[in-house]
């Protein structure tokens, strides 16, 4: 099944990258994560939800609390260092294509 969220879209957001960096050090509860940010708890929960949907974060039940930790396999996927380079060209070429389609239509 295709993931609803794209991993690269998920890490495009600076707050979500900061969450990843925090959780990389140790598994944390949503409350503990939220304490590190100036944003509301709801905003942070939304970010956590997105990161979980694209499998960057995994939930772990510990007593009554839910802890989040990093999914190492998925992180390896984004740590593929060529991907940002590819993405850069993908975006440029998408732009080229849409500009030239418009150019063609205008003629």
């Amino acid at each position, binding site marked *: 099944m295709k993931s609803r969220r794209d991993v690269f879209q998920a890490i495009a957001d600076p707050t979500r990258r900061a969450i990843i960096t925090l959780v990389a050090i140790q598994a944390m509860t949503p409350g503990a994560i939220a304490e590190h940010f100036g944003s509301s708890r709801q905003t942070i929960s939304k970010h956590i939800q997105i990161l979980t949907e694209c499998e960057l974060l995994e939930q772990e039940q510990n007593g009554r609390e839910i802890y989040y930790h990093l999914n190492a396999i998925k992180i390896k996927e984004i740590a593929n260092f060529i991907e940002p380079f590819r993405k850069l*060209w*993908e975006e440029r070429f998408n732009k080229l294509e849409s500009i030239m389609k418009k150019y063609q239509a205008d003629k």
Partner: protein
Amino acid sequence: MELKTKIKAENNKQEIHITREFDLPVELLFKAYVEPEIVEQWMGTKVLKLENKKHGSYQFETTDPKGNKHRFNGVIHEFNPTHQIIRTFEMENTPFPVQLEYLEFEKLTGDRSKLTIQIIYKSVASRDQMLQLPFAQGLNMAHNRLEEIVLKLG
């Protein structure tokens, strides 16, 4: 998600191949590389000079989010409309060595085309360094954001 742009970068080689198919006639794809106003739009650069001919040269300029200007340039070795461009590429005021680029434009159907770019670098190490640039920039952005957060906490 479909990957339209493919990068082939084999280990221990000093070259890469970038391939991409376009929903465009090859003439239009080629035009996007030739007309300065169009190049500026999709590359996000200012075109200071673009001489589309053998022994011609080009110079582009980009402005980063901090307002710093970066120029890059090259010499055109071959200019064969709708088929091929061979050129060099060099980033000015950086230690990165000049690279050689072969751009092959191919007609697939009347309204589809394919671009293959082969880039040859001075060494395996300089290739890997160029490939890592966007990755490192992404990490730096994350790092800057973390600093902001830490400052807010303090």
